[in-house]
């Protein structure tokens, strides 16, 4: 890997970490409300995978998706304004933290029903296949989603119809507060994909280089084979499930053991050791990130709220379509 890529991966992980810590702070200030699910600890997964995503690829994510949205190209400003509930937000204040969307960046949510995004990723892949478009679907979901029927139905259809999808399971060991071995009869998750004839691997989701390298191979595989692939990223969230979670179901010791494996700290150390990074460079990176997000917060603060008289807008598309090859997404 060249130094630019390594430094970009580091910077992206730091951006995600900074954004999430900032969100937590803004939540306590009551600038952000509702549910807020932080990605802290899992950064290596989104950063390593999405480094390979192209503009034309489809990304479908969960309610823990701020980082995925940012990496797919939604600006920090649009994300922050969304969490503030403002009209310049990427969902015009209709979605909030759990429903970030961008038609332009092909970011299809922000799905807050566990596993409900999976069939959309498969449908998007089906459309690409039928329309002979060069795009793949990258679908992120947690381990909890693998107990849902939507997961199994989607895996079967994706394999049966050979759809170009990368299924990215971010296994952070807990479905909200219930440990994997307390809700799954089979905790080897790759086996579940294999039962649908979908090849799969397990990757250390705390190691961004490994995530990056494996993902590169998987993107190539999907493009060559034109079929799905399943990858389980073993990872851990350092923060509670949401801002409402008292975190009673896991030990402090377990959390601190995982924190030793922090994807950012270890990677930073490695880059220092290899002399790819020095303190001055790090300071510059951090400064850039601080500017990016302080500007985002300023933007969100300054943005206006949607007028209440527009409340019932955008429930329906109002105009009738014409027949012919018009784009479906206006």
């Amino acid at each position, binding site marked *: 890997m060249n130094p630019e890529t390594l430094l970009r991966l580091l910077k992206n992980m730091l951006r995600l970490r900074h954004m999430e810590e900032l969100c937590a702070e803004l939540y306590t200030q009551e600038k952000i409300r509702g549910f807020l699910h932080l990605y802290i600890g899992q950064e290596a997964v989104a950063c390593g995978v999405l480094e390979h995503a192209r503009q034309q690829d489809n990304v479908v994510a969960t309610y823990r998706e701020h980082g995925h949205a940012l990496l797919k190209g939604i600006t920090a400003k649009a994300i922050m304004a969304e969490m503030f509930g403002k009209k310049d*937000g990427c969902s015009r204040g*209709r*979605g909030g933290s759990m429903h970030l969307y961008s038609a332009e960046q092909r970011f299809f949510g922000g799905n807050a029903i566990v596993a409900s995004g999976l069939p959309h990723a498969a449908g998007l892949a089906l459309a690409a296949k*039928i329309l002979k478009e060069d795009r793949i679907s990258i679908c992120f979901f947690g381990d909890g989603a693998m107990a849902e029927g939507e997961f199994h139905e989607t895996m079967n259809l994706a394999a049966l119809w050979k759809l170009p999808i990368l299924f990215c399971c971010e296994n952070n060991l807990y479905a909200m507060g219930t440990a994997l071995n307390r809700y799954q009869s089979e905790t080897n998750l790759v086996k579940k994909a294999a039962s649908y004839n979908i090849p799969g691997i397990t990757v250390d989701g705390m190691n961004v280089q490994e995530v990056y390298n494996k993902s590169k191979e998987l993107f190539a595989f999907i493009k060559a084979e034109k079929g799905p692939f399943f990858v389980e990223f073993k990872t851990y969230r350092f923060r509670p499930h949401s801002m409402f979670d008292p975190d009673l179901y896991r030990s402090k010791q377990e959390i601190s053991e995982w924190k030793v494996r922090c994807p950012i700290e270890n990677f930073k150390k490695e880059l220092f050791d290899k002399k790819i990074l020095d303190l001055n460079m790090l300071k510059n990176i951090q400064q850039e990130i601080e500017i990016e997000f302080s500007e985002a917060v300023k933007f969100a603060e300054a943005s206006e709220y949607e007028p209440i008289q527009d409340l019932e807008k955008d429930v329906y598309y109002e105009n009738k379509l014409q027949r012919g090859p018009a784009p479906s*997404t206006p």
Partner: protein
Amino acid sequence: MKISYREALRQALHEALILDPRTFLMGEDVGAYGGSYAVSKNFLTEFGPERIRDTPLSELGFVGLGIGAALGGLRPIVEIMTVNFSLLALDQIVNCAAMIRHMSGGQFSIPLVIRTTTGGGRQLAAQHSNSFEGWFAHIPGLKILVPATITDARHMLGEALLDNNPVIIFEHAMLLNQEDECEQKKSDYTPYKALVRRTGTKLSLITYGGMLCKALTAANNLAKAGYEIEVIDLRSLRPLDEATILKSVKKTHRALIVDEGWRSGSISAEISARIMESAFDDLDGPVQRLCRKEVPIPYAKHLELAAIPQVADIEIMVKGILK
């Protein structure tokens, strides 16, 4: 020329597949089997497996794939074999198809058409005789069509495909073999307006779907006894054409709603409330309702007949109101 409701549905589907290459049909047994109600018979041979897609028994999965395919630029027609199985797909229909447009601040549209068979009357017992169209009409973001005539069976699908919103078409199982003249589509054709199917002065009989032919039969019988009844076919349960309903009620001053769904929390309750809200002073008596009895539909024929509104029940109700 007279054609059957089934043939009208077939022609509509055939035309849709020919007119737009982005359209495809997906569902259980739509291909090799020819559709469980033979609506897509021989389509697999004609259009091939890419456009006529047999699915596994995975309503939740393939409705969700339909949403994704719509987001990806296609115009999917998803067939859910019967409305009873649509409950397996509720998360995708309600939480996703109906909500994504609003949740995304209007960025995404879901041009998805779901076709499904509804209604009882064939001794299929509780789990195969439901009428859930009124339930679905509760959800903002969905459009709910209930073709009751051969002409609507023929033309509603094409209009639904020109709508950039998720549209569910409820095709009534008891109508499949009915035959009638199929009218040409008029230039101002829209499925979203209620139509007065029979004019009258004494009472507005408001109904839809499988109940329309019963209502018309009852109205004809009642006419012989001197009661001139106006019959309104709602055609669309969401949006609901309140204007046509109110106009009729303001003329007749009495209303009876005939609904194949259960009475509690039903579309008939909604219509009744809207009449009260907007035409209370025009009423000569309370709005009345005739609905499915509040039981799961039983198997035995005499019990099923008693559970679902019949022509004679309508006549008795109307005579009771007008006596």
